[in-house]
Each structure stands twice: as C-alpha cells, then as structure tokens.
C-alpha cells in the first residue's frame, strides 16, 4: 500500500482534511480532560470512610435546651436500645458524610506557632469507637477512663485517636504515638492511629484533607447531646432506622428530628456525592455526544469523497486493484487524518489541562490518558469510515467506462 498517492489526494482536499483533523483534535483534547475529570469525581465518590457504612445510621435531634441534654441522652440511649435488631446506640458529634463538622486549626507546639492544618474532631461517647468499626493500626483502644466531659466543643485535655494520613502529615516519618497538639489552650495527646476516618463533609478542605480526622472519647452531657450513632446488621438497618425514627416521637416529643440528617450512612454518602455523580454523568453524556457527532462528520465527509471518486475507483479497479486495496485506501486515508488530529489534539489537551488546573483543584493530566484517547479516536475513525469505504470497494470496474 503506497501512502504517497493518499498524501497527494489529501493535499488536493486541504481544507476538508484540516477541518476533520481539527474536529478530531478538539475531540481528543476534550475526551482526555473529560475522562480525567470523571476519574477524579469517581475517586472522590469512592473515598474510603473507614467505618462500617452499611451497618450504621445517624439520628439527629435539635430544638432542645442545653439544660435538657443529659436527660435527653439518657432517654434516647435507653429508648432506642429497645428497638428490635438494634446492636448499639451511642452519642457521637457527627458521622462521615453527615455534614456538621467540628473543624479547628491545630498546632504541634504549645505556643501555636507550628500550624498543622484544619482538622475535624469527632466527639464519640462510650461504645462509638467500636460501633464505627474503626480499624486500629497503632496504639490501644479507648478505655472507660478516657471518656471525659465536653467543655468547649471537645474535652479540653484528652487522649485522641488520629488517622494515618493526619499523623503522616503532622509528624512525617515519626511514630505519632504520644505526640501532642493544641487548639489554642486545649491540649491533646495521640493514643492511637486508625487506618481511615473521613470527615463529616469530605472535600471542604480540599481533596488531600479528606481523612484529617481526630476521634476524641467524650462523656455525653449538656454540651454533647442530640446526635446518635445506631448500629444494626446491614440487612436489618433500614427497618431499625425506620423504627428508631418513629420511636423518637415517643421518647423525645420535646425535640425536633432532623429528618435530612437522620439517615443511614450509605444514604448520607449518596446524597453527599449526588452532585459529583451527576457531574460525572453529564461528562459521560458530553463524551458520548461528542464522539457521535465526530463519527457522523467522518461518515458524511467520507461518503462525499467516495461519491466524488466513483470514476477513479472504477478505473483503479479496472486496472487490477482488489476490493481490499480500495478498502485499505480509505482506511489509511482516515488513519492519516485522524493521526494528524491526534497530534494536534494532544497539544490542546495539555493546554486545556493547564487552564483547568488554574481554575479547579486538579492535578496534572497523567500522560497515559493521551495514548488511551488516541486509540479511542483511531478506533472511532476506522469504524466511521468503514461504511463508506465498503461502499467504495463495491464500486464495479465497469464504472470506468461510463461517462458519469
């Protein structure tokens, strides 16, 4: 197969060739970046919360006075424990994906000079550490004596459990056990490290801080009430939650149930990432529509070229070219045009990625997206040109003898 005559013919159709190549180039750039965005979103949606999501649910009550906190905790803990199928009920400040973050900036020195970032504090009552299903990777489990009363938003001087990623960030390369940090005056000492524990609102501090959580064993009381962690077997959880929500009306008629926040953790996760999910779907839709339009454009133009060259094809066939030769001619032509487009498209893809990085918190486009995008477009081009090329290969040699 000689490429030179194809080049010669393309040079005659410079404008059309350029247009198709530009279309491919743009498609390539958008395809690479859109795929990259989708992967980023999906990664965010799939983050590891570190808790047994399918077995957990939250109940959130509001509208009661601080003075009623102790009484409310007692009523809710004993009342909900009676719901059939309930494995445990504990007081907790928030659950992953439930919103209501307790954020504070921490420093690794008493003077507050060495700022280590804004982290989320989970206050957890007795039983909550075990109920969450946290995976301890260093240190010990919280014991009864570790649960202290909440004075500010957490106990003032407490042993805490931090996530691995927070420990790596605050004390890189050092054993975090026994290390201390401060929030103004209140002071904390690390007693254990857990594998993962996502923030209640992951993403608010940027993707790298999703796992910057601190678990503080806290004694339920006036300033620590109204939010509860329920645990049941995954199969029973929907019913248990429904019964618990119904029971609240009897147990605590004075409080108001926050229905949006009183959900299973699975549902909370789903609604938390709803926007990212729909954005990923929109991007998929754009990619599909874009590839379709590009393919139709190739079909249209290739059909036109085939129609225009019917006589030439007939002459070539009469001179001994096989059907395969004709088929390959159009396929090679398409391959050349698409390759030109891809070469241009990779440049545009990188420029586009630079622009996106400027406005969105996005990393560099990994290089391997480019060959994947290129193969996708080569395949698309070959598929699109197949119809017209087959039609061309079926042009009978006798056409050469006709005048039109």
């Amino acid at each position, binding site marked *: 197969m000689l490429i030179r005559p194809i080049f010669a013919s393309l040079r005659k159709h410079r404008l*059309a060739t350029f247009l198709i190549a530009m279309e491919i180039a743009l498609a390539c750039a*958008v395809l690479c970046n859109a795929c990259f965005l989708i992967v980023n979103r999906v990664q965010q949606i799939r983050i590891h919360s570190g808790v047994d999501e399918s077995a957990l649910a939250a109940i959130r009550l509001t509208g009661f006075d601080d003075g009623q906190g102790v009484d409310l905790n007692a009523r809710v803990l004993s009342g909900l424990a009676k719901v059939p199928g309930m494995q445990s009920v504990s007081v907790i400040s928030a659950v992953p994906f439930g919103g209501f973050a307790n954020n504070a900036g921490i420093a690794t020195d008493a003077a507050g000079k060495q700022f280590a970032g804004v982290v989320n504090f989970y206050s957890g009552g007795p039983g909550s550490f075990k109920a969450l299903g946290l995976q301890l990777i260093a240190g010990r489990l919280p014991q009864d004596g570790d649960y202290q009363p909440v004075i500010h938003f957490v106990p003032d001087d407490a042993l805490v459990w931090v996530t691995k990623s927070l420990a790596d960030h605050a004390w890189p390369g050092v054993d975090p056990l026994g290390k201390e940090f401060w929030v103004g005056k209140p002071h904390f000492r690390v007693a254990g490290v857990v594998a993962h524990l996502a923030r209640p609102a992951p993403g608010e501090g940027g993707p790298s801080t999703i796992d910057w959580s601190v678990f503080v064993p806290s004694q339920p009381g006036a300033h620590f009430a109204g939010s509860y962690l329920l645990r049941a077997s995954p199969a029973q959880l929907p019913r248990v939650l429904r019964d618990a929500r119904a029971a609240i009306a009897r147990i605590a008629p004075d409080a108001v149930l926050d229905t949006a926040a009183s959900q299973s953790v699975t549902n909370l996760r789903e609604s938390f990432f709803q*926007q990212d999910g729909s954005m990923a779907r929109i991007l998929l839709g*754009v990619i599909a529509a874009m590839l379709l339009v590009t393919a139709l454009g190739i079909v249209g133009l290739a059909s036109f070229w085939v129609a225009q060259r019917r006589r030439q094809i007939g002459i070539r066939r009469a001179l001994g070219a096989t059907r395969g030769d004709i088929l390959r001619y159009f396929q090679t032509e398409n391959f050349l045009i698409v390759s030109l487009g891809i070469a241009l498209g990779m440049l545009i893809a990188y420029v586009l990625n630079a622009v996106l990085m400027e406005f969105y918190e996005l990393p560099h486009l990994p290089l391997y997206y480019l060959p994947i995008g290129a193969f996708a477009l080569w395949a698309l081009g070959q598929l699109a040109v197949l119809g017209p090329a087959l039609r061309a290969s079926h042009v009978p040699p006798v056409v050469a003898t006709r005048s039109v």
Partner: protein
Amino acid sequence: MFGYYLDLALRSLKRNKVLTALMVLAIAVGIGASMTTLTVMHVLSGDPLPGRSGTLFFPQVDPNPYTDGPSLPYDMMDYRSALDLWSAHRADRQALIAHGQLKLTAPQVSLPPLMAQVLSTTSDFFPMFDVPFRYGRGWSAQDDANRARVAVISSDLNDKLFHGADSVGRTIRLKDSDVRIVGVLGAWRPSPQFYDVAGGRFADGQTGDFYGRPEDVFMPLNSSSDIDPAGFNFFTCWSMPKSDANLQTSPCVWVTLWVQLDSAAKVRDYRQFVAGYATQQKALGRFARADNTQLRSLMGWLDFNHVVPSDVRLQMWLAFAFLLICLFNTVGLLLAKFLSRAGEIGVRRALGASRAAVLAQCLFEAGLIGLLGGGGGLLLTLLGLWLVRRQPVAYADLVHLDAAMFLLTFALAIATSLLAGLLPALRASRMALGLQLKIT
C-alpha cells in the same frame, strides 16, 4: 430574489437528506448544549437586585487581636464592631444580619414542631433590599429599639402553617416565646440569596447553596437574642470561646452589616469612616490591623465569593467546546455539499450569475440549516433545562428560558451556521468556470 433563493435552498436540502439531517442535528445538539449551560450561567451570574445593587455595600473590618491572623478580613464581623458601625448611622440605610435556628410551633395549627431558619436583622432590611410583601409589612426602627416580639414570615412558611391565608396578627411560638406576625413576604427569590453569601472562597467551588430560598422567619436581632441568646451560627472564631460566655463578647464573627450609599461621595465618606473606626479600635488595643478593612459593592462581594458554582462554569466551557466541534463538523459537511454541486454552480455562472449571487445562495442555504438547527436546538435547550430543574440543586427552580435567551438561541444558531457556511460558500463561488463545466 429572496423567494428564488429559498426555493433553491429547499431543493438542495431535499436532494441530500442524510447530509442535511446530519448538519441540522449537529447544530441542534451543539446549540442545545451551549444554550442550556449558558441559560444556567445567565440565571446564576445575574444581578440579584437590578437597579439597586449599585448602591449596596458590604463593609468589613478585621477584629482579630493577633497580627498573624488571616491576611483578609473575615467574611463576617464580631457583634461589637458590627453594632458600632450600625449605631453610627452613617449610611442612607443599613441592616445587621445574623442567622440561627429556632424551634417553631404554631398554637392554632396542628403540626409537629419544626426547626425554623431565622434571619435576625434590623428594620431597614426590607426597604433596603426592596423586599415585596404579600400581607402586612416589616417592623419599625422603634420595634428594633423596643425588642418587640414581632416577625415577618416567608410565603412558603405561611402556606405551610396557614394555607396561604392572611396571617398578620396571628402568633407563632419560637422556642418558648410568643411572637406576633406583622408581615408575610410575597414572591421573593433573589438569585443568589446575596445577603447570605459568605465564605464562598472556602467552598471549593461548591457554592450551589447560595441560591437557596429565603429564610422562614425574619425578626429583630434584639428580639431573637432575647429569645435564644446562644442560638446564632458562628462563621468562625479567632480563639476558643468560653462555653458559658455571652455571644456578644465572644471572640467569634457571626454578624454582617449591609449599607446603602446613594452617591459616590457617600461611598468615599463611608470608606473613610470604616478606616477611621478601625484605626480608633487599634488605638484602643482591640484590633491588631487597622488597615485591613474592605468596602465591597454587592456585585463585587458576589465575585469575591465566586458565587457561581465551579461545576456550572465547567459545564458551560464544555458545552462551547462541544459547539466548536459541531461547527467544524458542519463546515466540513457544507464544504462537501457545495463542492458536490460544482456542475450546477458552473451552469449558473455560465448563464450569467455573479460570484456574489452564488455566495448569497450558498449562505442562504447555510442560514436555512441554521434556522432548522436553531429550532431543534431550542427544543433540546428546553429539554436540557427541564433536566437541570430535576437536579437536586438549590437553584433548580430558578432555571427558565427567558425571552432574551430564546432570541439568543436563534441568533447563535444562525450566526453559527453562517460562520460555518462562509468558507465553503466562498470556495464554491470562486471555482474556476471552465473546469466545472468540463467535468460534468
């Protein structure tokens, strides 16, 4: 002439139906996608108070007593600074704003208690922001001073509690206090809900919630502090608040101030006034940085907070990239179409048609494709907007096509297709005469 071109164009479009359909489809899809996203962008980035926004300003001071605090002032103010600036009455109108939730029950209505979003403000809020009333009116400055137990409720809450009836004079119970309704808001849906905008630059582009609905209950700040002194939302604190401390002296920011300044001279004076206040507070030892003040206009404040969600911007740019792809596609197809008619054009030229006539004819055909594509694009835009409205976002109910965007759809479609047709039409009109006649 016009009729002749139309006739020729229609004939030509009918001759190669598949190619025509492809072009119309490409333009329709491109226009549909870009107009959907452009409409959303138009709705979200518009002026929430047209005609009024130019006179509204958002003063900020930096109450941080530490010199190593954040480099820009907080998005809200501490109570004392806000109250000092408000009490000076240096603006044409001014309103303090704080947010909170209170348990709401209505004595005559059998509904379970609900948590009401309460906006605590001062009497100028309603005239300053041009808030429409369905029943009654706002409260007076006297009510602010008297700590009157009065409230204005949203039209949504009025529908829920009183089925839309005139509820002025009736009582609702907030926490443990009876509060008399003095007004019910009319249809009021500013986009965005500008007076609640704060902290946008920390939201990582997820700012859809700035387009929510107005709060349920509006009441004098003094009255809601009496009902629940601790029931306000903080923006942030520069040091740990004491748990039993009075909110009004806490080291936290939770109040905002909006001022109306009717002339450029007044804006200048007010800027000086705020700077003077900060200097004076620094002298008193309360502020660390006196020069860290701002007086942003309403639109400036919205820009600073990046109110338009970043996903919406991204969708718009994607849609325009898509439109560009559709455009290249259409240019290629039109080129094929016009050049395939070389013979016909040759005959017309030989019979005396000028190049301009051929060009006009080709452009006419391209425009017709644009018009058809625009019609399709309009349907797709309506479909797209319907899909947007079904999304669980705060601005879903705001997104509608207005007359301007309707016309823009067609203008864009025709402009796009004319642009696409220009190059092929030029090529067609410049073909050498003899050559075309020979090959037929």
